[in-house]
C-alpha cells in the first residue's frame, strides 16, 4: 500500500514540472518582449527594469529557467504588478474564503446528491428515477452564473430570507483570525455572527454546488444499480438477511467506492466554478481575485494562483486515490 502511495506521488511530479515549463514558456514564447507580455499596460520604465532584473531576462534561457524554478521551490511567487504586494501572502489571506465556499458547496452536493442517487436507484425506471434524472440534468445544464444570478434575483428582490452578497454583515465587526468566517465567529463568541455567516454561505454554495450535485447524484445512482445486480447481493438475500442489512452492508459499502472518487474529482471543477460564484456573490476569495488579476494583466498573481490550484488539484487526486485504495480491500491487501 505504501508503495502504491509513493508511486502515485512520483507520478505527479512530471505533471507539475510540465506545468511550470508551460507557464515559463508562455511568457517567453509569445511574440515580442517578455516584459511587455508580463506588464502590458503597466509598462513603466522602472517596472520594466525591475522585471528584467528579477527574471534575469538578459541571461540565457536555461539560466532563466533555473532562477524561475529556484524561486518557485522557495515559495517565492513574485509580487503583484499593481500593488507590489507579495503574491503568496495575498493568496493566503484570501484562500480561506474560497475553501469555505468550496467545502460548503461540496457538503451540499454530496449531502443531497448521495441520498437522491440512492432514492433513484431504488425505483429504477419509475417516476422517482425520472424526477431525479431531471434534477441531475438541470444541475449540469444550467450554468453557474445563470443559477447564481437567478438565486440572487429570487432571494434579493422577493424573498428576503437569505443574503445575496458578501460573506458576513460588516456591521457585526468580526475580526479575522483564521480567515474562515464560521470559525472566526466562534472565536469571537458571536452566535449571531455564526448564523449570519452561515446564511451568507447558503446561496453561493447552492450555485457552486449545482454541478457536483448533478454528477454525484448520477454516479451514486449508477453505482448502486450496478452493485445491486452483483452476485454477492443475491447471496446476501439468499442468506435471509433483511433488506436493510443488504442495502447497508452489501450494496452501499461497495457502491461508495466510485462515489468517493468522483467527489474528490469534483474539487477541480469547484475551484474553477468558484471563480464565477465569487464574482457574482461578491465573495472575497481567491477566485474573484484571480479573474481581476487576469483582466488587469497582473501576471504573477495569475501564474502563482494557477500553480497553487494545480498543486491542490493533484494533491486532492492523490488523496482520493489513497482513500480508494484504503477502502477497497483488493488494493489494500495486495
Amino acid at each position, binding site marked *: 500500500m505504501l508503495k502504491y502511495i509513493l508511486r502515485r506521488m512520483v507520478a505527479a511530479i*512530471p*505533471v*507539475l514540472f*510540465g*506545468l511550470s515549463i*508551460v507557464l515559463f514558456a*508562455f511568457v517567453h514564447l*509569445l511574440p515580442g518582449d517578455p516584459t511587455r*507580455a508580463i506588464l502590458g499596460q503597466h509598462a513603466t520604465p522602472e517596472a520594466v527594469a525591475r522585471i528584467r532584473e528579477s527574471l534575469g531576462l538578459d541571461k540565457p534561457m536555461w539560466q532563466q529557467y533555473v532562477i524561475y524554478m529556484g524561486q518557485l521551490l522557495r515559495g517565492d511567487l513574485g509580487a503583484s504588478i499593481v500593488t507590489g504586494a507579495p503574491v503568496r501572502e495575498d493568496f493566503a489571506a484570501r484562500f480561506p474564503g474560497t475553501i469555505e465556499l468550496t467545502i460548503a458547496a461540496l457538503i451540499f452536493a454530496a449531502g443531497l446528491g448521495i441520498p437522491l442517487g440512492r432514492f433513484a436507484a431504488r425505483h429504477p425506471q419509475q417516476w422517482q428515477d425520472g424526477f431525479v*434524472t431531471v434534477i441531475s*440534468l*438541470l444541475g*449540469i*445544464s*444550467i*450554468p*453557474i*452564473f*445563470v443559477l447564481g*444570478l*437567478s438565486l*440572487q*434575483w429570487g432571494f*434579493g*428582490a422577493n424573498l428576503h430570507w437569505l443574503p445575496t452578497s458578501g460573506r458576513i454583515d460588516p456591521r457585526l465587526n468580526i475580526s479575522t483570525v483564521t480567515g474562515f468566517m464560521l470559525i472566526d465567529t466562534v472565536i469571537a463568541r458571536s452566535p449571531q455572527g455564526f448564523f449570519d455567516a452561515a446564511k451568507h454561505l447558503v446561496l453561493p454554495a447552492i450555485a457552486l454546488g449545482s454541478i457536483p450535485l448533478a454528477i454525484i447524484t448520477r454516479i451514486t445512482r449508477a453505482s448502486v444499480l450496478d452493485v445491486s445486480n452483483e452476485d454477492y447481493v443475491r447471496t446476501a438475500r439468499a442468506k435471509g438477511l433483511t433488506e436493510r442489512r443488504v442495502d447497508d452492508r452489501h450494496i452501499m459499502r461497495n457502491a461508495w467506492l466510485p462515489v468517493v472518487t468522483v467527489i474528490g474529482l469534483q474539487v*477541480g*471543477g469547484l*475551484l*474553477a*466554478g468558484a*471563480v*464565477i460564484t465569487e*464574482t*457574482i456573490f461578491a465573495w472575497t476569495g481567491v477566485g474573484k481575485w*484571480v*479573474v481581476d488579476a*487576469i*483582466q488587469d*494583466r497582473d501576471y504573477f498573481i*495569475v501564474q502563482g494562483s*494557477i500553480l497553487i*490550484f*494545480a498543486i491542490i*488539484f*493533484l494533491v486532492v487526486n492523490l488523496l482520493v486515490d489513497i482513500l480508494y485504495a484504503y477502502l477497497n480491500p483488493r488494493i489494500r491487501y495486495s
Partner: protein
Amino acid sequence: MTSTVASLTPAAEARASRGLWRDAFSRMLRNKPALIGVFLIIVFVLAALLAPVLGPDGPYQTYPGASLKPPSQAHLFGTDRLARDMFTRVLYGAQISLVVGVVSVVMGLSIGVLMGALAGAFGGWVDAVMMRTVDVLLSIPGILLAIGIVAWLGRGYPQIMLAVAVTNVPIFARLLRGSLLALRESEFVIAARSIGASPGRLLVRHMMPNALTPLIVAATLALATAIIDVAGLGFLGLGPPDPRTPEWGTMLTDARSFLQRAPWLLIFPGLAISLTAIGFNMVGDGLRESLDPRMKR
C-alpha cells in the same frame, strides 16, 4: 445464450455495424427525453437560422425611449439598457453560440482524436508524452484554462474557440486512447491480426468504428459544455471584443447591474443558454443509452 462469432469479412462487418446503428436509431425514437432534446436543438438551430427573418431590424437597432422596458407585444423579451430588442438579440446570440460552439468542439475533437490515436496506436514514449500533456492540461481546472488562454492571447473569436477547444482536448484524447488500448487487446482484433490484417487496416477498419460511438456521445455532451463555457467567458468580460455583440453570456453582465429592475435581461438569455445545454445533454444521454450494445434491461 448462444454466442455469435464476429465475422471479419468487410461486408459482414458493415452489415453488423449498420445493424447497430439502425437498432440504436429505433431505440432513440422510443426514448422520450432524447426526443425532447432533439426538439430543443432544432429550436436552437432554427432560432439561429431564422434570426434575420424573425428580427428583421437586427441586434444593434435601438428603439429610442424604450430602454429597459419589460416584455410586451412590441418587444417579446423586453429591451435592454441601450433600448435594443432582447428578442432579436437572443436570436442572433444563437448564431454566435452555435457557430462558436460547434467549431470549438470540432477543433477539440480533431486535436484530441489525433493525440489519442497516436498514443493508442504507437504506445511507448509517444503515449507517455501525449498523456503527460493531457495531464498538464487537466491539472488546471476547466474554465480557468479557458480564461487564461483568452486573457493572454487577447479577445476575439479564434481565441475563444481555441480556449474552449483546449479544455475539450483531454477528454477526447483520453477517450480515444482508452478505446484503442482496450480494442487492441480484444479478441476480435487479435483474430483479425491472426489472419494477417495490417496495422493500418486494423486501425481504420476494425478499431475506429468501435471507438467512434463513445466519441459521438462525448462530442454531443461537449457541445453542451462548450455553449456554457463560451457564455461563461462572455459573462466574465472575455467574450467577443465588440461590446455590441449579442452574445448570450455578455448579455448577462448587463443583467447583473439591473437584476431587480429588469429581470427579463437575465431570464431570456439565461433560459436560452440553459435550454440549449439541456437539449444537447439529453440527446447525448439518449445516444449513450441507445448505442450501448449490451442490453441491460
